[in-house]
């Protein structure tokens, strides 16, 4: 996420240069992708959903720099709907599990105009474009609070009634980007009694978009199930700013604050709140985690004084009840990523500074032995092969299309090969079943580069299906092209001199010289070599390890 620096300064009074701030954040909080005069781009991770908002970043900056926050959460009695006897906006949530909170505010008397310069600048510093004043409010609120919002044009919503439901079979929707989407029954939708209006939490529909003539909007602030949002956004290839935030999970306290400010911003534009529905349980469950001094010290390997632990956690927004050598820590509502004691220890550790943790040797202790014979054997074998003049190559674990073609990879072979369900291209569709075909490809490449003598080996895994299960085995393969018309002679002697005592694999007769073959080694059939663009004779061997 891009964080507008000017906006951030309005939220927290930090006294650092941008460079210093970027350095501090990357050492204590989160990586920085990019810094410019106007913004810092955070390298967001899947835990810190709170940092998908300006306020969240401001809180973090305040905690790690000891600077003052310039905003505080509004009092509930200042919410625009508190104490007013407003009618309800008609809403029906059919999928309460997938939509635990659904709030809709009806706002009238609006006029669509361009946004003021200051809004446009905020948006552009955060990497978003201005649309119009009505839509911009929803985006500004999302950036500030991390709570996505959506404004429906009330005139285009049948009976001005919103329904949260799953899509029906065969249902279609044109999304804001103009694309016609075939919906799946597990897509969560916002609909009116007649039509679907948008993919919940992912993207609104074209038909209910705010237009220049809109004067009345239905403003939505909701919490949707992260997994449903993730599936829908993946299925439709729509990774929107909103869907990202729904996937991280949202909090109710934050939602109400965001909704309150959004309504106030609309009121500032001359709008009037005329109805509202707040559906669902609006209270966050507080999380209390027990943290012990002993666990902190034993996981970090550092003795941190109790008061330092307390200061660190308090500055991050925890409230603590001390109980001897332990604390009952109440997690601030905006930190959904903290669930276990170790999570809190990370908080303590980063406030202490990872950099300040001194290295300490492992204690000597008796470790149960692991069998080292195979890796040792493989390394010794490699050294031995090098010793007789072979060069080690390592090739991809796949068969390239050139190899597949040369092998005339039959239907039968395909059935016993291990196949990739989602190959990147046809070059990664089948895992190799032998090593030697890949070595031939290497021989061909180097012949074309002018090599006149090629003696190479690979030790690696091959893969195939066996009894309905995939199986991988270690192999050794050698390929020799010595510019003679009978390279098997030399390969055979080479193998003899190594006294390998390994079992040769079965070589498919179709791929090899009709006469020149012996246990696990053979001259490759010229037809196959020719197909790979090789005009020279090549002998290969392949052994099981």
């Amino acid at each position, binding site marked *: 996420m891009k964080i507008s620096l000017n906006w951030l300064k309005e939220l927290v009074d930090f006294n650092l240069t941008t460079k210093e701030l970027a350095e501090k954040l990357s050492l204590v909080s989160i990586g920085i992708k990019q810094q410019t005069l106007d913004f810092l781009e955070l390298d967001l991770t899947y835990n810190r959903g709170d940092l998908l908002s300006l306020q969240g970043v401001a809180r973090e900056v305040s905690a790690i720099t000891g600077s003052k926050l310039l905003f505080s959460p509004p009092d509930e009695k200042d919410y625009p709907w508190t104490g007013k006897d407003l009618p309800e906006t008609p809403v029906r949530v059919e999928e309460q599990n997938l939509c635990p909170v659904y709030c809709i505010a009806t706002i009238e008397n609006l006029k669509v105009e361009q946004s003021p310069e200051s809004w446009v600048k905020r948006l552009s510093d955060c990497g978003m474009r201005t649309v119009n004043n009505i839509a911009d409010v929803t985006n500004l609120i999302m950036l500030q609070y991390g709570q996505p919002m959506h404004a429906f044009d009330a005139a285009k919503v049948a009976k001005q009634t919103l329904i949260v439901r799953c899509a029906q079979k065969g249902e279609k929707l044109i999304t804001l980007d103009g694309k016609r989407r075939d919906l799946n029954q597990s897509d969560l939708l916002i609909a009116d009694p007649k039509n679907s209006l948008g993919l919940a939490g992912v993207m609104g529909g074209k038909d209910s978009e705010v237009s220049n003539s809109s004067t009345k909007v239905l403003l939505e602030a909701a919490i949707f199930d*992260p*997994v449903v949002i993730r599936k829908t956004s993946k299925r439709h290839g729509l990774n929107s700013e909103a869907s990202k935030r729904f*996937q991280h999970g949202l909090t109710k306290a934050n939602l109400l604050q965001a909704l309150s400010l959004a309504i106030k911003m609309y009121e500032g534009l001359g709008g009037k709140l005329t109805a509202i529905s707040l559906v669902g349980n609006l209270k966050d469950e507080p999380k209390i985690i027990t943290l012990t001094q002993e666990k902190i010290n034993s996981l970090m*390997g550092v003795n941190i004084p109790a008061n330092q632990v307390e200061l660190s956690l308090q500055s991050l927004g925890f409230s603590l009840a001390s109980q001897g050598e332990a604390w009952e820590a109440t997690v601030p509502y905006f930190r959904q990523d903290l669930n276990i004691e170790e999570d809190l220890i990370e908080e303590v*550790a980063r406030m202490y500074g990872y950099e300040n943790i001194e290295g300490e040797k492992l204690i000597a202790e008796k470790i149960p032995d692991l069998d080292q014979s195979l890796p040792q054997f493989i390394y010794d074998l490699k050294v031995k092969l090098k010793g007789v003049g072979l060069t080690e190559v390592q090739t991809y674990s796949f068969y390239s299309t050139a190899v597949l073609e040369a092998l005339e990879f039959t239907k039968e072979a395909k059935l016993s090969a291990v196949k990739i369900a989602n190959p990147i291209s046809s070059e990664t569709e089948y895992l190799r079943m032998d090593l030697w075909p890949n070595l031939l490809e290497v021989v061909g490449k180097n012949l074309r580069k002018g090599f006149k003598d090629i003696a190479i080996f690979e030790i690696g895994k091959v*893969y195939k299906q066996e009894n309905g299960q995939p199986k991988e085995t270690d192999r050794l393969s050698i390929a020799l092209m010595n510019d003679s018309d009978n390279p098997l002679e030399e390969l055979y*002697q*080479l193998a003899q001199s190594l006294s390998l005592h390994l079992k040769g694999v079965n070589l498919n007769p179709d791929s090899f010289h009709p006469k020149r073959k012996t246990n696990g080694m053979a001259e490759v059939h*010229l037809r196959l070599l020719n197909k790979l663009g090789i005009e020279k004779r090549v002998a290969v061997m392949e052994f099981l390890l």
Partner: protein
Amino acid sequence: MLKLALMDVKIRKINQDYQGQISQATALKELDKIFLELFGKSGLVDQLSKQFKTLPKDQLKTVGPLFNQVKMKLEEAIRVKREGVRENIYKSLENEKFTLQPSRLTHKREGHLHLATKFKQEIIDLFAKLGFEQFDAPHIEWDKYNFEYLNIPKDHPSKDMWDTLYIDTANLKVDPGQLLLRTHTSNFWPRLMEKGKTPIRAMSFDRCFRYEAVDARHSHTFNQFEIAVVGKDITMANLRFLSDYLLQGILGKEAKSRFRPKYYPFVEPGVGIDCLCVFCHGTGCKICSGTGWFEIAGAGMIHPNVFKATGLDPKIYTGLAWGFGPDRMLMLKHNIEDIRYFLEGDLKFLEKY
């Protein structure tokens, strides 16, 4: 008109002559020669087409198609003949003998180990001194060892951190999506932990896979090196020691690294390890995007959920893990500009090391 007639005759003659030569050829070399005479640089075809420039447009309309037709016919004739000659050669293989003459001496050559093998051994030896032993896990892996046991549940957004190649299970007795090409060597620790033989001090240097298009800096197939330690009092301070031990062991005593928080689902606390840029020594350059540091490794204290999933009690045990990409490190060390060199078998490259 005369010019046109001449050209026409010329083309027909070339066709006749060479079709004859092609049909009589018995060896690939002869065909190669014919091909060169016709289609080589300043071969007959090339010469003829140059003469076309002097022809008026309407004449070109007549002679052009004839020329193209002859050209195609000759090419086809050479191709067919070549196949015929090859088939004869293939047949004659039956008459070749299987001989293994012990008198012939083998060539003297200088052998080479792959640079990744040498680097692997260097690191393995370094950690063997601290009592670490190798433990390799399969390349084709179950989702549970690659993800689920590592605290990456199904449908969790963190799964997007790994673009995964899945195994087609159509012919296997396995549910779709259950088997994949492991995306990291980290699958070795749940496999080892579930054996329950503690303490653990293990390492693996092995191949991993990602759904990633290949270019100079990315590959779908790459190496990782990873260590895992499990015991009763394993700490972040131990992690710091091991991290410095490795980086100084391979980059030299002056190598400087730093720890910072980093999220990986399978560790808590999670650590990102930056190395002082070896090119600019921290002043900031293109290679480190001006920061003076580049990210080199990921690490952390093994997450309690990994212990629980593998049947170990996180109240009794703690553990650490540290991993990095040796290919990237080798590229930095030896100034190798293209990751494809590692697996594409260019002998000129491999013989340098």
